[in-house]
């Protein structure tokens, strides 16, 4: 497809974290790539490992963790970078937007402090101008007043916009947005998403947008990946994943969204989402999949190309296009 080297390329990422002296596999085998100027959505429920994947890109994992695979930013493997280079990468190249701005920002430091921290290596007057411009870019006009305020004085939506402004000030080329709107109410969500998406397009930066909200992801991304139990089960251009999902899990996610027009019983996926370490042999979704067969329980499927996207399902080709009907029949 693309001959240009991707901005971000994750190859076979695996993450194990030691919790209470037990090693737990949380990310099994994730491979994805993001081109400059494009947005990749990563959708999954809690425990699917999506946040950890993002953190791995910046090597922000907890102390007691082991990482396998490669994370290439512009061709360089982040996981084997020297400290100094890693710091420069974090300072200039990659920016992370966290889920809850209130806990992600230091409550005893002013907004001004927060903003100027990211560009400490620039001279003072340049810092100030950059901060004013950044705030303007996210739609916050009276910068001087804001500089003196503290995080607790701002609403959630405003604070998240400040966070976005702050991490984008150094002009990074890749944005990792880890559930940036989950902590906000619905109306604020769309405002903040609009700001973020607009910024991404205007600056031509790459973005990984992590969320559990399918609709949100579909609205702002070019490509969409679905994660379950620590690995990617389906990934491809957003339009086709959304209109023609191939993996039973993806289909189930789509159909389980409550309808805003009809009154009908809520369709749910039986069972609960599992983490990577809880998966036995075979396909991770098999225990909950209405289409599971013997093969599914024995052998874990690999990602294979079907049409313009990739799916990890033994029966994908066979079920393609008929899944929704079959789901209706089964429920």
């Amino acid at each position: 497809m693309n001959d240009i080297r991707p901005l971000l390329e994750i190859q076979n990422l695996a993450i194990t974290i030691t919790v209470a002296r037990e090693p737990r596999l949380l990310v099994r085998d994730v491979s994805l790539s993001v081109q400059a100027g494009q947005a990749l959505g990563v959708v999954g429920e809690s425990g699917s490992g999506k946040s950890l994947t993002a953190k791995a890109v910046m090597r922000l994992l907890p102390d007691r963790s082991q990482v396998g695979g490669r994370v290439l930013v512009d061709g360089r493997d982040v996981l084997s970078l020297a400290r100094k280079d890693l710091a420069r990468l974090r300072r200039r190249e990659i920016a992370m937007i966290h889920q809850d701005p209130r806990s992600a920002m230091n409550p005893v430091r002013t907004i001004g402090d927060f903003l100027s921290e990211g560009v400490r290596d620039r001279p003072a007057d340049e810092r100030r101008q950059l901060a004013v411009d950044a705030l303007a870019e996210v739609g916050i006009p009276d910068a001087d007043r804001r500089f003196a305020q503290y995080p607790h004085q701002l609403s959630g939506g405003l604070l998240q916009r400040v966070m976005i402004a702050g991490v984008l000030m150094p002009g990074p080329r890749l944005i990792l947005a880890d559930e940036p709107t989950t902590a906000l109410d619905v109306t604020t969500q769309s405002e903040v998403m609009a700001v973020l998406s607009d910024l991404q397009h205007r600056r031509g930066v790459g973005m990984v947008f992590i969320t559990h909200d399918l609709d949100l992801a579909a609205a702002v991304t070019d490509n969409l990946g679905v994660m379950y139990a620590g690995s990617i089960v389906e990934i491809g251009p957003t339009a086709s994943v959304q209109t023609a999902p191939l993996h039973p899990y993806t289909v189930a996610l789509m159909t389980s969204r409550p309808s805003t027009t009809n009154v009908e019983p809520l369709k749910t996926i039986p069972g609960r989402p599992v983490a990577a370490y809880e998966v036995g042999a075979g396909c991770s979704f098999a225990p909950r999949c209405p289409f599971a067969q013997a093969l599914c329980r024995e052998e874990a499927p690999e990602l294979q190309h079907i049409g313009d996207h990739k799916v990890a399902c033994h029966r994908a080709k066979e079920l393609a296009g008929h899944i929704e009907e079959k789901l209706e029949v089964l429920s």
Partner: protein
Amino acid sequence: MASDPTRVRWVRRGRSHLTRWVIVPLVTILAASLVLYLALSLAPGDPVVAILGDKATAAQYAALRHQLGLDQPVLIRYVHWLGGAVHGDFGDSLLYRQSVASLLGPRIGITLSIAFYAAVIFVTAGVLLGILGGMVRRLSAPVAAVSGIGVAVPVFVAIQVLVAVFAVNLGWFPVLGAGDGGLDRLHHLTLPAITLAIGWSAYIAQVTRSAVAEQRRSPHVETARGRGLDSAWVFRHHILRNAAIPIVTVSALAVAGMFAGAVVVEYAFGLGGLGSLLVSSVGSKDYNVVLAIFLILLIVFVVVTTVIDLVQVWLDPRLRERQGP
């Protein structure tokens, strides 16, 4: 023009600040001193009998009682006492036959010296130890263990151990007395100060360690590291700065609480400070002295807690707008 809203706000702020930092502490001291006076007035035993012995006549008792003003109602006596206290006149000591004020004078200096000396030691040692325990993962458990034992060792036990080792065995420090000024004073007060400081440094180390460790794990520190900020900056402006809030609070509380230990230390080392005077006065029912010393302690406490309040608001901007919880 109509009243300027900013100015009105400023005045209202100023008035509530005055109330909070000046009036409330004053009222607290007054109320507590009243409780103190009333409590001591309930003590059994008649000072008049203590002075004249039990062979005097009823008339003599009555005369002395009138002379000392003891035949008036409690509240009036309180007001008289308070009035005198404001001028530094606490009456006379029954035991030493001299004015209480003259008794207290030289002793305050000794007590303050010990308190200051000990405070410097325990704040420095405690915070340093706590930072080490909080930042260096391998030292976390050892620091926790050592400080856990340190807080359990009472002052009077620590005294024995330190005296046995340093004064008796090694002969580095004198065992009794406060010395004569300057370097000799410092030499004499070192062992008492260290003894007093052990328990409190352990306590401060515990609080510091957990505060620092908590900050180190916090999301905002992760954000800071994620922005590529160097560890020295992160430590200073994110970890230490935030941990300072509980650390400073606890240190100030420790300074207040230390006075209890100072009493024990002064008694054990025979230092002529307020603490040892308090013990002997309580034993000999010399109430004028007891009252005076407790009033001083009360004032010290209220001042310290008010300062804690002030410092907390200064350090934590979240506390600034509201007065309530």
